[in-house]
């Protein structure tokens, strides 16, 4: 492990163009850190307003039940309880009682949007059916326990494969079946390729990914101003503009009457991009009460009411030639969608798409069935379906290597898209119908670097030696290529006011990924380089009319590009106006700190004076006839995604007595294009890797066959802690993308993606003497003990 105080990774970087101020590529201090370190952050539960009331929800204890009656009297009798609201109480305020959030797709068989509160049927444990509003949370929870609900339990379906059988209970009483959507992805003459193939290998896989478990749960605070009718909602969201749009749609408000503000967000990881029933209930609660209302999710609620990623069943079959080169892949996926559509069919789409990118694959067909279950809705968690596709592909490649007695890395090398074919047109399209073109990168070189760093070729003798001593070492590999920077745009405004301070507004949302620092860096690169002279406001719909928010490793790519072009415009105007004020040609000026300077002379004008000059003075002309103000707003449109890639190699030691897996070393070599901030990039990767280790070995949101959750605490749903994190060696390759002005690719999700396949491959390798074959993730100690037991007895 590299020593503390130094960058952990090694950089193989092309020489950058020299600029007078070079913040890009430097690990400048984060703007976010100081208040967070002092306990002065402002998270959703830190907001307090005079007269504020607090809410608690009454939730279904059943996976599927009729809601026959709700009696409020006992709850309302408690001192300090102000209201118990059920669906009928909300309806007068709702133009549309459903959250219409599904991404468009022609593949839906059923529209199942979530209601604010259900009319008469609850379809998963944790679904809210009533909201209590009280003086404080303690009283609200007391009262929630006294709301009497007459439940009529119905048969429920827990497993997504079982859900598609003809005699399965229906997840919704009124649905004809549990098939929410169905589609086939693919290209080429798959069956002909299979018929002509030298070898065909078929496997079945089960995969599970669990929840996001940001350490901060969700929360919402709403204030309704009875005088002007405006609603302000603070919520721990990754997508404030989407929340605003849904609130307007449901409440019948125009966008000028609804402001959504994101406070500090204590981790997002996907589920906070979703708009939830509680959010609209709290907003209506504030309207009804005429007072601020707050709701803060607790961890148990997070387990049952915050969206998750869960199960996929795969059948996948690979056709290869005698040398292990892929000819075609075909198969089927069943995806657990949960009880409602809270995002779309993007997750299984991403999973299926993933098979066809990264490796050269002449023909492909994957049939995807999306199944309804009586569980909370499934939506993206860091990685968003891509880890599952990568897992299947990497496991198939391991199988091919084993069958053909080839080295696992060699099989991959033969199939990876080579650098000389970039840009590489794949056979698949994104969910928005945009052709997937791999824009840049050298995947084989990345893999080779990882192998060398991991000591791949020296490993077999070490493994053999250890086995003689009764120790089971294994090594495994996983490659990934990940679409990042999903468009179409992110809006950024850059402004210098008469104070001389730079202000940045953006529709991008910060949830811990250093978004403010990233934008400040890009803007200051053009505007003097003083990171203490900038304020970044992210995620407030009151400051930017349009915005997308945080998802899909997109914000550095999209918001970063807009920040760059907007700040170049402000820079040009700053120079132009300064040129007029100083009576010096523009070519003789440069920007440094908070001033515009005459090159080589002790003459300058500060930002404040320039901004003041274009702020206008009544009765006087603007200098140089320029437009008023010193600001620019840009929304750079980039439809095509840019593809990051990387290779993980894991070395493990398996204790065959206890089934414990110890990750001895993990090498991660990746390429996210031009690196803006090495420390942040490494932080993003390390967090993702930790999540990936959890997906391989620990995280499992268990339900029984009737949809009852079997996890409800962080003591039985295991997050990786410091003692499970191995020594990690990071290395960075930089292939700038031609798709955006800064050459950057996203990185937020990259760490997680290849980890489960690399770790599982390593465990299988360690247990090769027992003939272990692993086709699932996560694997538990008892799975491992079961794998070695036949040989032991």
């Amino acid at each position, binding site marked *: *492990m590299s*020593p*503390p*105080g130094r960058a*952990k990774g090694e950089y193989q970087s092309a020489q950058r163009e020299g600029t007078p101020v070079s913040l890009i590529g430097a690990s400048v*201090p*984060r703007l*976010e*850190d*100081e208040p*967070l*370190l*002092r*306990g*002065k*952050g402002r*998270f959703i*539960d*830190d907001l*307090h307003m005079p007269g504020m009331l607090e809410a608690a929800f009454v939730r279904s204890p059943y996976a599927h039940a009729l809601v026959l009656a709700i009696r409020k009297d006992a709850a309302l009798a408690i*001192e*300090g309880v102000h209201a118990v609201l059920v669906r009928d109480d909300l309806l007068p305020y709702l133009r549309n009682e459903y959250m219409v959030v599904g991404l468009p797709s022609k593949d839906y068989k059923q529209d199942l949007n979530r209601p604010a509160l259900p009319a008469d049927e609850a379809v998963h444990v944790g679904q809210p059916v009533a909201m209590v509003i009280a003086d*404080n949370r*303690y009283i609200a929870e007391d009262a929630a326990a006294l709301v009497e609900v007459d439940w009529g339990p119905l048969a429920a379906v827990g497993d997504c494969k079982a859900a598609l059988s003809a005699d399965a209970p229906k997840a919704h009483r009124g649905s004809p079946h549990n098939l929410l959507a169905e589609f086939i992805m693919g290209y080429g003459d798959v069956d002909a390729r299979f018929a002509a193939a030298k070898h065909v290998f078929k496997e079945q896989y089960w995969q599970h990914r669990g929840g*996001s*478990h*940001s*350490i*901060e*749960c969700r929360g919402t605070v709403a204030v309704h101003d009875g005088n002007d009718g405006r609603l302000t909602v603070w919520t721990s969201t990754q997508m404030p503009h989407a929340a605003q749009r849904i609130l307007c749609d449901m409440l019948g408000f125009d966008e000028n009457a609804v402001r959504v503000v994101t406070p*500090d967000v*204590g*981790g997002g*990881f996907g589920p906070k991009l979703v708009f939830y029933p509680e959010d609209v209930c709290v907003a209506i609660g504030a309207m009804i009460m005429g007072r601020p209302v707050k709701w803060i999710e*607790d*961890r148990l609620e997070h387990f049952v009411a915050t969206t998750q990623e869960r199960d996929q069943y795969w059948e996948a079959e690979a056709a290869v030639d005698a040398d292990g080169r892929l000819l075609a892949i075909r198969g089927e996926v069943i995806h657990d969608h949960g009880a409602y559509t809270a995002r779309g069919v993007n997750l299984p789409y991403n999973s299926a798409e993933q098979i066809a990118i990264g490796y050269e694959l002449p023909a492909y067909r994957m049939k995807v069935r999306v199944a309804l279950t009586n569980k909370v809705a499934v939506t993206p968690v860091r990685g968003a379906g891509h880890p599952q596709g990568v897992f299947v592909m990497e496991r198939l490649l391991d199988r091919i290597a084993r069958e053909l007695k080839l080295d696992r890395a060699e099989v991959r090398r033969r199939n990876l898209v080579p650098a000389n074919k970039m840009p590489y047109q794949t056979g698949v399209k994104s969910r928005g119908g945009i052709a997937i073109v791999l824009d840049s990168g050298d995947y084989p070189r990345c893999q080779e670097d990882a192998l060398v760093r991991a000591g791949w070729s020296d490993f077999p003798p070490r493994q053999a030696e250890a086995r003689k001593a009764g120790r089971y070492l294994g090594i495994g590999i996983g490659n990934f290529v990940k679409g990042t920077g999903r468009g179409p745009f992110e809006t950024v405004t850059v402004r210098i006011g008469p104070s001389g301070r730079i202000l940045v507004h953006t529709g991008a949302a910060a949830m*811990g*990924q*250093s978004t403010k620092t990233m934008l400040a860096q890009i803007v200051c690169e053009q505007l003097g380089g003083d990171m203490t002279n900038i304020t970044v406001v992210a995620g407030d719909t009151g400051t930017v009319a349009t915005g997308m928010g945080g998802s899909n490793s997109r914000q550095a790519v999209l918001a970063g590009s807009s920040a760059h072009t907007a700040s170049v415009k402000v820079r040009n105007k700053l120079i132009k106006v300064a040129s007029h004020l100083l009576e010096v040609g523009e070519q003789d000026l440069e920007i440094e700190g908070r001033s515009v300077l005459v090159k080589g002379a002790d003459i300058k004008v500060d930002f404040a004076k320039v901004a003041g000059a274009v702020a206008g003075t009544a009765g006087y002309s603007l200098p140089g006839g320029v437009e008023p103000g010193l600001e620019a707003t840009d929304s750079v449109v980039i439809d095509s995604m840019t593809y990051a890639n990387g290779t993980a190699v894991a070395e493990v030691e398996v204790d065959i007595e206890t089934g414990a897996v110890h990750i001895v070393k993990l090498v991660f070599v990746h390429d996210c294009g031009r690196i803006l901030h090495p*420390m*942040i990039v*490494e*932080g993003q990767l*390390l*967090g*993702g*890797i*930790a*999540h990936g280790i959890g997906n391989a070995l620990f995280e499992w949101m268990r339900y029984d066959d009737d949809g009852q959750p079997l996890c409800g*605490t*962080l*003591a039985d749903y295991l*997050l*990786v*802690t*410091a*003692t499970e*994190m191995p020594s*990690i060696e990071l290395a960075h390759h930089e292939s700038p993308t031609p798709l955006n002005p800064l050459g950057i690719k996203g990185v937020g999700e990259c*760490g997680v993606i290849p980890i489960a396949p690399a770790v599982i491959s390593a465990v299988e390798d360690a247990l090769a003497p027992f003939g272990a074959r692993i086709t699932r993730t996560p694997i538990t100690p008892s799975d491992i003990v079961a794998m070695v037991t036949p040989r032991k007895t």
Partner: protein
Amino acid sequence: MAESRSISLKVNGVSYHEDVEVRMTLADFLRHSLELTGTHIGCEHGVCGACTVLVDGRSVRSCLMLAIQANGREVTTIEGVAPSPTELHPIQQALREHHGLQCGFCTPGVVMTLLEFLKDCPNPTEEEVRVAISGNLCRCTGYQGIVDAVLAVAGGKRA
């Protein structure tokens, strides 16, 4: 209304005399009654460590302790750690330098845990650091930056 008691305690060196409901947790008391919102609540069942504070110098999960149990005791929260509004404590500074925080939600609990740990174990090995913070969940950092920060503060060497 639930039963209340009067308590007296010191928090970050300041004396408070408050009436609190007997069922109120120390975490909620600090956050809502004293408006010291730097102590965060992540799980309310004692696993995540975000709510860690020091009571008479020892770390406790303030979600598992009642406010009335703090009667007569001295509590230190994250707001009481930095020596001044312009300086950070060395642990805070090191976390900053080593990217030991991202969203920052778990950070106050991590800092409080480390304050106690480095007092007990001023020159730890990497393994000792990892064990010490294994009761603080962080979903952002993969813990690497936190470990690096502690070793830098302690002047220790990695194992």
